[in-house]
């Protein structure tokens, strides 16, 4: 009956009797939304450009190395798994500077935060979801090239046990790096609702200490005070990571003269890293205590 099929019914307001999944589900939803957002998914085409380019730039050297290793039948990969992220630090720093403000300061700038806190999720859930999302995004960015290297190494029939060990060490290293850097970058961007300022501040904090520490380390190396190099490394996030993986993850240090920290000093490095992570998390919680309604 055609007359029936063309009728428009005004069904009026319908109540919702379905499930309400509560806090944990909302936190997971916020996590996945933020993680997707960190790669521009679910957002405008324009916001996909930068993260995708950086992702490509991050993976390209790995692909080239693999191609070279396979073609030349080399005995080893040109770069250690643990060194890869350190070499490409500029790329992931840029990624963090772009995406950390995107992850948190949008909600602050457009005052969307009160809408979250007027719902079942709590302050802690919000901070955890955002932190986990950015750390995961950074982990994807730094771990995928390692995976490329590993798969390539196996294709080039390099020693399986050796490569697997290196790959595992690399994964642990980038996981720690992701959590540390995501925390620092998030805290900096949560302090300022202005996105441009956040970008500049994140770049500054990630690069300036590294430049300063490297310079002073080089001077110390020239003057033969090698003992100071290890201690100096504590003062920038990247040299911190370098020190941790040199001491515990079998990496070759990028410090001048390859004078990475000893195991004893390595413990200090790990403690500083953990303190920074805990501090960033506590700082974020504190930041959102006042960002309520």
């Amino acid at each position: 009956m055609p007359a029936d099929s063309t009728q428009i019914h005004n069904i009026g307001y319908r109540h919702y009797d379905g499930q309400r999944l509560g806090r944990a589900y909302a936190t997971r939803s916020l996590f996945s939304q933020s993680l997707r957002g960190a790669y521009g998914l679910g957002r405008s085409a324009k916001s996909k450009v930068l993260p995708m380019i950086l992702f490509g730039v991050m993976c390209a050297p790995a692909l080239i190395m693999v191609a070279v290793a396979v073609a030349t039948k080399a005995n080893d990969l040109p770069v250690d798994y643990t060194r890869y992220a350190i070499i490409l630090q500029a790329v992931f720093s840029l990624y963090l500077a772009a995406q950390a403000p995107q992850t948190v300061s949008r909600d602050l700038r457009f005052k969307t935060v009160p809408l979250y806190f007027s719902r079942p999720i709590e302050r802690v859930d919000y901070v955890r979801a955002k932190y986990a999302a950015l750390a995961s995004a950074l982990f994807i960015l730094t771990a995928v090239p390692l995976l490329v290297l590993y798969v390539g190494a196996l294709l080039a029939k390099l020693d399986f046990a050796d490569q697997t060990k290196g790959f595992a060490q690399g994964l642990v290293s980038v996981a720690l790096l992701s959590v540390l850097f995501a925390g620092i970058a998030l805290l900096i961007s949560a302090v300022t609702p202005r996105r441009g300022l956040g970008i500049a501040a994140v770049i500054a904090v990630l690069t300036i200490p590294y430049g300063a520490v490297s310079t002073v380390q080089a001077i110390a190396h020239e003057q033969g005070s090698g003992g100071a190099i290890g201690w100096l490394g504590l003062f920038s996030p990247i040299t911190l990571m370098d020190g941790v993986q040199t001491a515990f993850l079998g990496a070759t240090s990028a410090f001048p003269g390859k004078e990475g920290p000893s195991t004893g000093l390595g413990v200090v490095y790990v403690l500083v890293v953990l303190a920074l992570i805990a501090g960033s998390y506590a700082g974020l919680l504190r930041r959102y205590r006042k960002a309520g309604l």
Partner: protein
Amino acid sequence: MTVIATESLSMRFPRVTALDRLSMDIGPGVTGLVGANGAGKSTLIKILLGLSPATEGRAAVLGLDVATEGGRIRERVGYMPEHDCLPPDVSATEFVVHMARMSGLPPAAARERTADTLRHVGLYEERYRPIGGYSTGMKQRVKLAQALVHDPQLVFLDEPTNGLDPVGRDEMLALIRRVHTDFGISVLVTSHLLGELERTCDHVVVIDGGKLLRSSSTTDFTQTTATLAVEVTDSDEHPDGTAALRAALQGRGVATQDDGGGLPGAGHTVLLEAAGEETYDLVRDVVADLGLGLVRMEQRRHHIAEVFRTADNAAADNAETGGPGENQRAAQGEPDGQVSERAAAWAATAAAAEKTGGGRDAR
């Protein structure tokens, strides 16, 4: 059934007392919360959402204690903030779906409810466009939609008509009314414009300086009276049409009064008691005989503002006689002390706002 109940609820900050032993019960329906800026409206909403603990006293929303069951309250309550809260680079649909999921709705239900809710608040094709390009009226609708998307039992609307033009304001008020009548959701709406609440609310609560000034149903405030308000034009023959009409009505044995209320058109409005149908005919005939134009003839209702005018005068008197300060008066337990001078000033501006509000009185 009580939707919101507070019991000597106090909120003290180091320098300010935002709420001072506020006790009230609010039932289902549309309730207006009136107060000047800084009267404690936002603080009250924050406490009722279980987001900040009160210094003293208790409050319950939908029978749940705000101090211990904030999470469960927030699951069943919607909140529309006063300020802008929408990111400009996403569409209304995406934004509201996300907010629905934040309220705990599964993905499929979130999408379905979003489509429904946006339709109910009057957003159609534009909901797929980024919010940045919306008008203020459309943004207010999105804000309302995100508060309703999880089908709450109660919504808090903080100044929902802020920044809207008269037409947008009317539409928003009608929408708020529908939230209760059609959707069956109770509403607590804040405003500093009495005229608005008069039109939408079943019940009005007035707070000032964190204290309850008055709580009663809107009909108590604005009972329809038998008073008839008549406004006429002037003519060459009668340069003062109002006076001429008054004199002519006096001649027919009908007592008239000035509109001394200071409300719109005061001085040009003749008030008289309508005895029945024939009074209307009489006025019509008298006006026609005088050759004047009849601008309007309507049943007068009391306005909420009038309730405050008495308070206004009382406070002004206090100020003139150099009465003791507010705090002292309160300490002495004098009931008049409830009305601060700030309230008086505000009532005056509220009345003024109503005058300029136009249109509203010409109903």
